[in-house]
């Protein structure tokens, strides 16, 4: 098929139509061009590459340039070297935001993983209404984060908090808790909401992983006298490790670069104490209009993302090699 016309030189296409070749003549000249794998591949990849090039690669280069310039909204900047990075690095609010981002990512991921694993193990059993329960467990992940975060904000409201009311009625607290009016509490609340939203993602992907594990292995382990915890630790967990790693990588990237949750829940306040890198970049770059500095703040995410992506790629390579 690769070379249907013997000795096909210049005018072969024309000759071919005249000759009685039942098979090859059915292929139109226009589509025959597409028989070349390279050309077809180039054509098929063109839309995706063009789109990603224009709206990811180009902005990325542009972002690097912005971060090295003094651009603000309305004025084209000049090259200032690493001045923006220096300024940002010495900014105490940025340092706090960076620290917040690390704590937020670390704790939220830990909670999401442990609760998600627990829920996955529960959902892996047989019970009535399992499909309905599984479907409804994913709701926090489906519903737009901004909208569900408002429900949480309303639950954390300083004056009308239902959580305060419940805890008070149950006798756990004597006065209301300062959910969002204190920096440490605020970050804690954000971690809770993030865990609530992201846990189903862990649960469902881990559940998919659990379902691929052969039940005979558990049977064998329990015949050998392993208890539930040992069965989990020595049978389930090692088999689940690959999918867990991938889910954790995705979650770390999303949590580390989170914006909307904090934007709605605390807006970075009180007194800039709950900013994440992304919300601070927005405040400086968009709200204040210092594009260069804002771009520099976002780029501080890059080293961490780079390490995570590198780990992921290395892991994928190892899987392919195996």
């Amino acid at each position, binding site marked *: 098929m690769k070379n249907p016309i013997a000795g096909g030189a210049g005018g072969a296409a024309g000759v071919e139509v005249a000759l009685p070749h039942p098979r090859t003549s*059915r*292929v139109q000249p226009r*589509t025959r061009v*597409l028989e070349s*794998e*390279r050309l*077809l*591949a*180039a054509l*098929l990849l063109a*839309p*995706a*590459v063009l*789109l990603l090039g224009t*709206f*990811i690669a*180009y*902005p*990325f280069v*542009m*972002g690097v340039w*912005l971060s090295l310039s003094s651009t603000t909204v309305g004025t084209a900047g000049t090259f200032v070297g690493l001045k923006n990075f220096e300024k940002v690095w010495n900014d105490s609010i940025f340092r706090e935001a960076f620290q917040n981002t690390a704590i937020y990512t670390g704790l939220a991921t830990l909670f999401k993983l442990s609760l998600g694993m627990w*829920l996955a193990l529960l959902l892996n059993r047989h*019970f009535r209404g399992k499909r309905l*329960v599984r479907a*409804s*467990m*994913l709701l926090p992940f*489906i*519903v*737009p984060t*901004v*909208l*569900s975060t*408002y*429900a949480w904000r309303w*639950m954390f409201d300083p004056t*009308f908090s*239902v959580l305060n009311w419940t805890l008070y009625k149950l006798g756990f607290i004597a006065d209301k808790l300062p959910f969002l009016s204190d920096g440490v509490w605020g970050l804690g609340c954000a971690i809770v909401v993030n865990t609530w939203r992201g846990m*189903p993602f862990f649960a*469902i*992907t881990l559940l998919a992983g659990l379902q691929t594990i052969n039940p005979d292995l558990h*049977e064998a382990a*329990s015949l050998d006298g392993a208890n*539930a915890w040992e069965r989990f630790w020595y049978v389930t967990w090692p088999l689940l490790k690959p*999918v867990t790693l*991938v889910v954790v990588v995705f979650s770390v*990237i999303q949590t*580390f*670069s989170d*914006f909307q949750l904090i*934007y709605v829940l605390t807006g970075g306040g009180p007194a800039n104490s709950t900013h994440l890198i992304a919300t601070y970049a*927005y405040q400086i770059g*968009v709200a204040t209009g210092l*594009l260069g500095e804002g*771009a520099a703040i*976002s*780029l501080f*995410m890059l080293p961490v993302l780079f390490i995570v992506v590198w780990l992921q790629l290395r892991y*994928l390579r190892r899987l392919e090699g195996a």
Partner: protein
Amino acid sequence: MVIERRWKKWVFFYIPLTLFIIGTLFPFYWMFITSIRPDAELYRSWRAVNNAPFWTLHPTLDHFQDLMAKTTFPTWLWNTFFIAVASTLISLFCGLLAGYALARLRFPLAGTLGTSIFVTYLVPPTLLFIPLADIIRNFQLGNTPWALILTYPTFLVPFCTWLLMGYFKTIPRELEECARIDGASRFGAMVRIIFPIAVPGILSAGIFAFTLSWNEFIYALVFLSSPERKTVPVGVVSELIRGDIYFWGQLMAGALLGSVPVALVYSFFVEYYVTGLTGSVKG
């Protein structure tokens, strides 16, 4: 199977599962109950004696009526829907073609391209929104739906490509080869034989992409400015809160209505969505 005692099943299964269900669904119940509660009941001190926050005896649809009649909420709903559908279709188109090429064709740089598409998958929107806003301005796309329709595919195309590539790899090559022996061109075999088989994969990718674009916030926040152009998440954030005052009834009504379309789509295609979700992280 492992035999369990009754109390054990309660302690290790029913009680934790119930707690999970309550914890997961309570915020939605709270959204609902707030949206049908009259203002007089909403803003009652948390220590008031007659306060019964978990239900109401005077349900009202006032908040929904206000939302539909006095704000541009219906327009936001339509904008969100249009943008989500358009960007999903663009992403599916790009992802389908690119996924096929990466799964089936041999060409130089195939590995590098596959890897770089995967890497763009991991680039978060918050890394690029500042320079992108500049580019959108330069392209004269600011404050138009196209600003979002063209930028949402940046996080949808890599995902669709990745998912569909995996799907194509599971389709036996022989099917295509048979078609080609019967005289179909490579392109024809792809469109008429492989794509129809891949419909479940396409559906999974499409549903997942739709929910992601319905959910998107930061691009919509930065690229759109006039109220009637906004999407639901941005409209709710910037237009339903006037000054510093939160109208919680209306806000929760908006949150509920803004979640319904995406929840409906999800409920019809749960299995496809789950396939998309689990496929999105598989190598």
